[in-house]
C-alpha cells in the first residue's frame, strides 16, 4: 500500500515536471512554426483576409481611433484590424505576457523612445528599410523618426507629438508682475517671489515626473562641457571630476529648491500623484508644474484662471533648450505574419489625412509636418519640437530609467546624497556601455 503510494507520487511529480518544462519551451516552439508559415502564407494567398491583432492603450481616444481604423479598412478591405484595449500602465505586462505565451500582438501602441526592452527580446520588427524606401512617409515625420531607433535601426514610428513643458498660473504671474523665466536663475527668482508672497507653493512635479528635472538639465550641462554625444551614449566617466557635475549639479539644484521650500508638498514633495497635482493647480495651491503638451486643453478647462505655458528654463544658455521624450507611436511584432499589412497601417496613421483628423477632433499635436495648423498653441508646440533630443541617456537601459525615476525621491527623502546619486547613475551607464 505504502509503496504504491510512493510510486504514484513520484509518477505524478514527474508528469508535472514534464508539463512544466513544456511551458517554458512554449515560445520557442511556436516561434519556429510562425516563421515557417510566414513565407508560405504571404506568397500563396495575398488576397485572403488578413487579421492584425492590435493593442491600443489610448482608451481616451477610442472614438477617433475607431474612425481611423474604419477608414483604413475602407481602403484595405482585405485587412482586418482586431483592436484590444488595455490601461496604459499595464501595456508592458500585457505585451510581454503575450510574447512569452507565443501569442504576440501584431501591432501595438508604445513610446518609441523606450523600445529597447522589446528589441532585447527580439520582439520588434526592424522598420528601417520600410521607412527608408518610402520618401513620402519618411520626409513627413523626419524630425521625430530617430526616437524609435535602437543601435541605428528603427523599431517604432511616432504618431502623436508629446513632450514635457511647464504650465503656470498666468493670472497669478500677472498680479505679481512676473514674466516667463528663460534661465534657471530667472526661474529661481520667480519661485522666490512666489514663495515670499506666501499664498501658493511655487512649483511641483508629480511623482513620475520628478525625474524630468535632471533629464532637462543634464544634456545642457554635457553640451556646455562639450561632450553631449558621449554623454547621451553613456560614455562619459563621472569619476573624472570634469564630468561629475553633469550628473551631480542637477541634483544640487533640486536639493536647493527643496531646502528653500520652493517645492509643493514640502517634505513630501516627491510623493504627489498626477491627479493630485492637477487638483492642486486648479485649486491655486501651486503656481507652476511640468506636464506633457497633450494636457494643455484639459488643464486650461479645469482652471478658472488664465493658464500659460513656457519652455522649461535652460540651465546654461537661454538660447538652447534640451527637450526629451517626443512622441507616442506604434511598433510591429517581429513575429507578424503579414509585415506589409502592418506597415501599411502604420503609414496610414502617419498620413496627413489621419494626423489632421486627430488634430481636429482631439487637439493632438501631429508628428507629420505636412499638416496645416491653425491653433496658436499647437503651432507653438510644433515649433518647440525642434528642441527635442530624440536619443537620451535615460533610455539607455530599463535599469537606468527606473533608477532615475526614483532618484529625485531618494534625494528629497534624504535616502541618498547628490554625489551618491551621481555615482549610481554613472555606474549604471557604464554597466550599460559594457554590456553592449
Amino acid at each position: 500500500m505504502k509503496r504504491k503510494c510512493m510510486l504514484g507520487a513520484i509518477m505524478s511529480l514527474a508528469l508535472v515536471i514534464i508539463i512544466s518544462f513544456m511551458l517554458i519551451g512554449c515560445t520557442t516552439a511556436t516561434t519556429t512554426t510562425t516563421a515557417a508559415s510566414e513565407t508560405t502564407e504571404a506568397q500563396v494567398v495575398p488576397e485572403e483576409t488578413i487579421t492584425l491583432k492590435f493593442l491600443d492603450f489610448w482608451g481616451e481616444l477610442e472614438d477617433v481611433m475607431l474612425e481611423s481604423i474604419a477608414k483604413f479598412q475602407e481602403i484595405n478591405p482585405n485587412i482586418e484590424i482586431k483592436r484590444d484595449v488595455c490601461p496604459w500602465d499595464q501595456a508592458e505586462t500585457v505585451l510581454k505576457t503575450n510574447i512569452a505565451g507565443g501569442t504576440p500582438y501584431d501591432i501595438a501602441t508604445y513610446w518609441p523612445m523606450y523600445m529597447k526592452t522589446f528589441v532585447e527580446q527580439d520582439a520588434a520588427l526592424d522598420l528601417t528599410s520600410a521607412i527608408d524606401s518610402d520618401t513620402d512617409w519618411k520626409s513627413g515625420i523626419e524630425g521625430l523618426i530617430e526616437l524609435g531607433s535602437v543601435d541605428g535601426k528603427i523599431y517604432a514610428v511616432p504618431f502623436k507629438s508629446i513632450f514635457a513643458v511647464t504650465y503656470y498660473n498666468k493670472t497669478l504671474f500677472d498680479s505679481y508682475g512676473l514674466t516667463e523665466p528663460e534661465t534657471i536663475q530667472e526661474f529661481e527668482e520667480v519661485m522666490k517671489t512666489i514663495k515670499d508672497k506666501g499664498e501658493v507653493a511655487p512649483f511641483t512635479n508629480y511623482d513620475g515626473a520628478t525625474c524630468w528635472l535632471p533629464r532637462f538639465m543634464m544634456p545642457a550641462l554635457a553640451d556646455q562641457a562639450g561632450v553631449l554625444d558621449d554623454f547621451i551614449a553613456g560614455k562619459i566617466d563621472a569619476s573624472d571630476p570634469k564630468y561629475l557635475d553633469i550628473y551631480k549639479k542637477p541634483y544640487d539644484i533640486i536639493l536647493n529648491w527643496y531646502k528653500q521650500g520652493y517645492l509643493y508638498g514640502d517634505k513630501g514633495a516627491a510623493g504627489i500623484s498626477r491627479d493630485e497635482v492637477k487638483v492642486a493647480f486648479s485649486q491655486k495651491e501651486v503656481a507652476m508644474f511640468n506636464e506633457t503638451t497633450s494636457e494643455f486643453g484639459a488643464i486650461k478647462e479645469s482652471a478658472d484662471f488664465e493658464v500659460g505655458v513656457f519652455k522649461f528654463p535652460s540651465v546654461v544658455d537661454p538660447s538652447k533648450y534640451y527637450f526629451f521624450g517626443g512622441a507616442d507611436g506604434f511598433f510591429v511584432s517581429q513575429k507578424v505574419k503579414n509585415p506589409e499589412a502592418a506597415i501599411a497601417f502604420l503609414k496610414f496613421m502617419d498620413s496627413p489625412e489621419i494626423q489632421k483628423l486627430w488634430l481636429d477632433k482631439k487637439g493632438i499635436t501631429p508628428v507629420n509636418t505636412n499638416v496645416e495648423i491653425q491653433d496658436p498653441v499647437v503651432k507653438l508646440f510644433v515649433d518647440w519640437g525642434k528642441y527635442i533630443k530624440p536619443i537620451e541617456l535615460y533610455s539607455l537601459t530599463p535599469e537606468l530609467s527606473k533608477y532615475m525615476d526614483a532618484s529625485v525621491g531618494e534625494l528629497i527623502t534624504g535616502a541618498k546624497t547628490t554625489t551618491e546619486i551621481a555615482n549610481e547613475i554613472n555606474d549604471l551607464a557604464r554597466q550599460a556601455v559594457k554590456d553592449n
Partner: protein
Amino acid sequence: MPGNKKDYLVSYSFLMPVILMILVIIFIPMVSSFLTSFTEWNGASKPQITGISNYIDILLKNKLFFKSLSNSLKLTLISSVLSVTIGYFLAEALITISRKRLSEFYRLVFFIPAMLPLAVVGILFKFIYNPTYGLLNNLLQLLHLNGLTHSWLGEANLAIYSIIAVNIWKTFGLNMIIFYAGLKAIPKELYEAASIDGAGKLKKMFFISIPLLRPVIELAIVISTILGLKTFDIVYVMTGGGPGRATITVPILIVENSFRYNKFGYGAAIGMVLFVVTLLIIYVIRKFIGTKEKIEF
C-alpha cells in the same frame, strides 16, 4: 480496523477535485516557475541555464531585495495583527447588540471597504493623505494639531505606515465577518452556563470564545499573513514603491525585474525566495497558535 480501505477511498475521492484543480492551475505553473528560476530567460527566446546564480545574486548582491522583504514583512506583521484584533473586537461588540437591524447595518458598513476595488481605494486615500488639501491634514489643523500634519505618502519613513493603515482599513471587515460567523456558531448554552458560574465578559471571552474560536483565529491570521506577503496592488496604486524606493515590496520587485528588465528567471527566483519565507512564517504560526488535529470540548 474494518472498513479502513473504504474510508480511505471516500476521503480521497472527497479530496480529488480540489487536488486536481490545484495541480493544474497552481502547481504546474509553480513548478515551471521554480525551473525558470535556475535560468536566465528574457521572456521570448530560449532560457539559458545558469544554475543558482540568480539566487546568489538575490541573496548576496541585491540591496533592494532586503529592503523590499523588510517592507513586506512590516506590512504583513502590522496589518495582520491590527486587522485581526480590530476585526475580532468589532465582532464581539456586534454579537452583543440586541437590535438585529442595527447589528446588520454595522456589519454591512464595516464590510464596505473590503468590497471596494483596490484601485479606487488607492486613489481615494491619495486625496485623503494629500499634504495641503487632504482631509487628514485639514482635520488635524482643525483640531489645532498642526505639529502632527505630515506628507503621509511623501516622507520615506512614514509612507509604508500610511499604506499599512489603508491596508488595515481595507481588510478588517473581512476578519470581522469571519469572527462574527465563528462567534455565532458557538452554542449560547456555554455562555449561559458560564454566567451562572459568575463569569464576567472578559472571562467569557478568554475562556470560551477564544479557545473555541482557535481554528477561526488561526484561519484569520494565516489568510492575513499570506495575502500580506503577496501585497502588490495597494502599494502599486498608492506609491508605486516610492518615494525613491521607500515602499518597495517583494511582488513589486518581481514585476520590475520580470516585465521591466526582461529578467523573468530572476523574477521567478525572487518569487521562490518569498515562497520559502512565507512557508517558514506560516509554519511557525501554525505551530504556535495552530489547532491540534482534535479539539477538546
